[in-house]
């Protein structure tokens, strides 16, 4: 029993977690975080005798809203994730679909040489129907487009500006590398506007999709590889920014909490990781943020990803967006957009994800913003598909405001 599992001791059964769970709100296949987490934990603890009894556990999306709402410090979502990893262990590993969707870097590697074709194929409805039947990925689920050029190849031909006063390492993650190099480029430019030279340490996938799906062993091997790759940067320059809130979160806390990796190297890396918006707000606290933004006269809706809340740094994107003149920002009232990483693409979970996201979609329909802003990539794809509006990372907005200044 890890420290996380012992937090179940704090549960006083008050039901607060059940009031914020977006999944139990939309389906009675999921009896809620209290049942799955600290309550179910007592029956699972110490058991290694064959099939895990859990079926309803599979519906937990690990959005983490329960952990945040709990007044006693029970790490409900994390308890569920650990239980899921045992469930997967009992079943002999992940099913094929989950193995594939948990390895975005592998998918990217394979698809990139034929990106335009791959994208066209995946956009074709008959293909999607086939993929749904064969693999269990819902035909309506948002799929990112493979980029022909990776972020790192863009970075290779990008020249560092002169006169930088600081250095920052960039953990870009699979999303920026394979699917959204434009987000990565925006991160680099925004940092450079703030006098930073950006390094691109060798890196791979953080393993979060594997961990979320319950394959902790595979997750651990990705984790140790990534920690090794980033270890040097944790000392020098000592700051590693991440533009994917969920991948940043994984480095900050999930290796320790879920995978039990608490060695000095992992700790050093996790303590050096900053979410990009968190980092920029930190510069602003010291008075060194470049605030020369040109106006963007538009109305935006900002949706904080559930994973961002788990960083415990507040909503730095909102503070930054407030500095852009002319930009009206409304905050999403939804706790979770529904996709929760790879959860929402699965055929058996898709409708739940769409129902969970309905609060957000309704708010978007009522407010009719010009665009939506969200720090997490899977959320961006899901929201874009469901609302038809463009969805940007906060740094893309800042990049635009800097560029036109």
């Amino acid at each position, binding site marked *: *029993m890890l420290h996380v599992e012992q937090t179940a001791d704090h549960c006083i059964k008050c039901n607060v977690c059940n009031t914020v769970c977006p999944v139990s709100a939309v389906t009675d296949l999921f009896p809620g975080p209290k049942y799955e987490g600290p309550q179910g934990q*007592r029956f699972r603890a110490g058991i290694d005798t064959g099939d895990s009894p859990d079926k*309803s556990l599979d519906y937990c999306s690990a959005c983490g809203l329960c952990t945040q709402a709990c007044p006693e410090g029970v790490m409900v979502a994390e308890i569920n994730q650990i239980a899921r990893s045992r469930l997967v262990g009992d079943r002999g590993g992940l099913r094929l679909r989950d193995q594939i969707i948990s390895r975005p870097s592998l998918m990217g590697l394979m698809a990139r040489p034929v990106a335009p074709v791959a994208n066209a194929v995946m956009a074709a409805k008959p293909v999607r129907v086939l993929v749904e039947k064969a693999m269990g990925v819902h035909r309506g689920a948002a799929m990112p487009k493979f980029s022909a050029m990776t972020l790192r190849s863009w970075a290779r031909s990008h020249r560092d500006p002169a006169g930088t006063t600081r250095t920052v390492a960039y953990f870009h993650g699979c999303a920026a590398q394979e699917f959204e190099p434009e987000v990565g480029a925006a991160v680099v430019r925004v940092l450079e506007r703030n006098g930073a030279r950006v390094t691109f340490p060798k890196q791979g996938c953080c393993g979060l999709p594997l961990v979320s799906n319950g394959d902790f062993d595979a997750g651990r091997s990705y984790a140790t590889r990534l920690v090794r790759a980033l270890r040097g940067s944790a000392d020098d320059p000592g700051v590693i920014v991440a533009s994917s809130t969920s991948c940043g979160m994984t480095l900050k806390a999930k290796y320790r909490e879920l995978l039990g990796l608490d060695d000095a190297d992992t700790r050093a890396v996790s303590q050096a990781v900053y979410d990009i918006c968190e980092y920029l707000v930190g510069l602003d606290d010291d008075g060194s943020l470049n605030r020369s933004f040109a106006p963007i006269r538009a109305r935006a809706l900002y949706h904080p990803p559930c994973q961002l809340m788990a960083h415990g740094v507040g909503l730095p994107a909102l503070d930054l967006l407030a500095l852009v003149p002319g930009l009206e920002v409304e905050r999403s009232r939804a706790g979770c957009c529904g996709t929760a990483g790879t959860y929402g693409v699965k055929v058996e979970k898709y409708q739940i994800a769409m129902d969970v996201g309905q609060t957000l979609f309704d708010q978007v329909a009522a407010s009719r913003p010009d665009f939506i802003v969200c720090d997490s990539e899977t959320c961006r794809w899901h929201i874009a598909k469901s609302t038809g509006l463009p969805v940007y990372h906060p740094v893309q907005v800042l990049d635009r405001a800097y560029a036109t200044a």
Partner: protein
Amino acid sequence: MTTTLETDVVVVGGGVTGVAVLRDLALRGVHAILVERFDLGTGTSGRWHGLLHSGARYAVRDQESARECIEENTTLRRIAPHTIEDIGGLFVLLPPDDEAYAAQFVEGCRASGIPTEELSTAAAHRREPLLAPDVRLAFAVPDGGIDSWALLRSMAADVEARGCQVLVRHPIVGVERTGDRITAVRVHDAVAGQDRTIGCQWVVNAAGAWAGDVGRMAGVPLTMIAGKGVMVVMASRYVRGVVNACRKPADGDIIVPQHEVAILGTTSEQVSSADDISVPPADVDRMIDMCAQMVPAIASGRVLRAFAGSRPLYKPEAPAGGGAGGDTREVSRTFTVLDHASRDGLDNMFSIVGGKLTTCRQMAEAVVDRLAERMGVTEPCRTATEVLPGADHGHHQVAAPLARVERDQAYGELICECELVTRGQVREAVASGLTELEDLRRKVRLGYGPCQAAFCAWRAAGMLAEGSEEGDPVAGLERFLEERWRGQQSTIWGDQARQALLNHAIYRGIFDLRGDGVPDEAAAVSPEEGA
């Protein structure tokens, strides 16, 4: 006004020994009636740590007990697997312990016929991930966990199906004796509020720690030593199997997982009465500190409750009147059949004293063999081979309640969420005649969990109200809450303090219950029991 019953044998005492005696008699075709002052298992059988002994704990100093244990361990697994968790046990040597004891331990187990296996510390830690990192040696033994309530329920169901009677809430108030024979036993029917007389040919005194009181009523001198032990219940399980310290038995040297909790045990203090179930806070602290040496996470863990029970110790040369204070671990844990004919000139009474829960069946066999011989009953004992009702379920799996709820998707039916007790289970218990929340607690484990009945008690009270216009379920609820509260002050801090205050805010704050229905010195329906 009295009513009269007739039987061949009256068995006094509704613990596991008494019920096992009744069962043995029933299987030999003898008619018998058991009388118990409160409910089954409210004595030592309900106030202990739940260990199905391999006997290893006695291997060094009391090999007779050790041998009895390992034999019965095997027998109980055969006849009552459903009451047993097949979890094994470990004996671990920690840095301050004496390695020489480990050698004696191994030798003692061998001599007693207890299979042991030395494990590497790596293997021990794989088996028990929370084991202290500085364990030096580890031995695996066939310990198990046994649920005494389940065993009692199973045996009682068996005997009632065979035509014997179990009279609970019928304390013995006296015997009628003619010369050197008892002709009848007088009991008080506490529910009906009247006395009854049970005419009988023989009496078996299986009153355990209270055997001396029964002896006195029958006019024979019999002194029991009450060896009190305190046990602490942790809110979660911590260990997969039993963990013992490999040292001379002492305080805080055992952790027994039982269902979803872990029971830390125990102390050993001679007290003047077996009804002394008080728990000194210092004992609670001691249990935690000592057991945390074996499993460090316990030091920061949540304590659910603590309870105490008296070992029914018998020493033939014990001083009259019994004493108090002093360690009782020197007294042998084997059992003794007392034939009061030869001992005291009372022709038709036997007492079965001493022993332990693991050997209850064997104890019953021993006394019933002697009794049968005197009665001229030639049927041999069959209790070691006849399985108990429910045995076909196999060993109890801790995850079974969760598996059931998952299989039936019965989340919406949960009344007690901590223990996963469903509406159906409560309805069945109510239909079988239970009207008190305390009885529901014992029967279906309602309110056993960490929230200590914060939510389930009033749900169950509601179901009792639906069942009947009579009674006052709210007053019953208040009584139940006060009963659960007694003696808990020594174990409430940290998480449990927050739970207690939330519960208080719910019952007193939201529902404005003030306990008006519960007078200050209200006697409980039955004394509070352990986990």
